[in-house]
């Protein structure tokens, strides 16, 4: 359950739950987590090696990939930039700072920048593509991949979690209400399609 003090969508928890269409799609806001923006030269073994031994996680070198090491995620944001996502109470920043001290890097706590929405279900892909120009076809975009794009003109960092598909949508706190309202609206038609007894495929 999202923390009422920090979560931008805490006041919408029930609206998000009510938007669910059984067997089609469900939406919820995930609890806040620690998010660190890490920048550094990955070709430099002093940087990559230090990060990887400090976090026991390999930074993805391939664009738009996610590394997952027991709940700690590293999302590729750029050739020298990653978003590290861990549990809310985490000493991630302090650990990185002490391990990388003296190196030419940037370590920024961006936990308050984005909130995470979980959109999952057989219709999730179709719903996202109503407002997101990414090619989400399973042959192109699958579990373990991430991408930065837009959702209905709002900034979006998308991470596909599994093949259902379940997506994690990282949206800016100030755009969270807009993005969630847009998603609830985009989910509505599946409810009516189901009530009418005309289920697709």
């Amino acid at each position, binding site marked *: 359950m999202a923390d009422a003090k920090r979560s931008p969508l805490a006041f919408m928890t029930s609206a998000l739950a009510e938007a669910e269409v059984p067997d089609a799609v469900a939406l919820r806001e995930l609890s806040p987590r620690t998010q660190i923006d890490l920048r550094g030269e990955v070709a430099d073994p002093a940087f990559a090696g230090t990060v990887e031994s400090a976090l026991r996680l390999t930074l993805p070198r391939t664009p738009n990939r996610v590394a997952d090491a027991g709940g700690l995620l590293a999302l590729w944001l750029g050739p020298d930039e990653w978003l590290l996502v861990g549990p809310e109470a985490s000493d991630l920043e302090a650990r990185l700072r002490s391990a990388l001290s003296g190196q030419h890097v940037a370590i920024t706590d961006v936990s308050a920048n984005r909130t995470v929405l979980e959109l999952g279900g057989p219709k999730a892909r179709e719903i996202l593509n109503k407002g997101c120009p990414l*090619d989400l076809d399973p042959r192109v975009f699958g579990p373990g991949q991430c991408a930065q794009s*837009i959702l209905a003109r709002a900034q979006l960092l998308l991470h596909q979690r599994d093949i259902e598909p379940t997506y994690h949508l990282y949206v800016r706190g100030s755009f969270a209400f807009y993005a969630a309202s847009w998603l609830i609206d985009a989910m509505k038609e599946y409810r009516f399609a189901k009530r009418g007894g005309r289920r697709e495929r």
Partner: protein
Amino acid sequence: MLLIECPWCGPRDEVEFRCGGEAHIARPQDPDALDDAAWADYVFMRTNPKGWHRERWCHSQGCRRWFNVRRSTVSHEITAVYKMGEEPPEAEGSAQ
């Protein structure tokens, strides 16, 4: 709508990008030595061709990296995408 191949992210929709105008305009080595006309030429004057054009683009809603594109201003065909600091491949495309 253009499909632009980001050198890092691959083909993405045009709405994710921002065009930064003509590419390969080098900043004068010694700006103090320039007269106003030469400075204005550097700051404002662009080629605006009908046909092949080398442009800078930024994947502003994606990985936020700048890169170069060779695009036809007539057909919008893109025949080359290359990173900053690189020279474009020699051959130009078919369309004009």
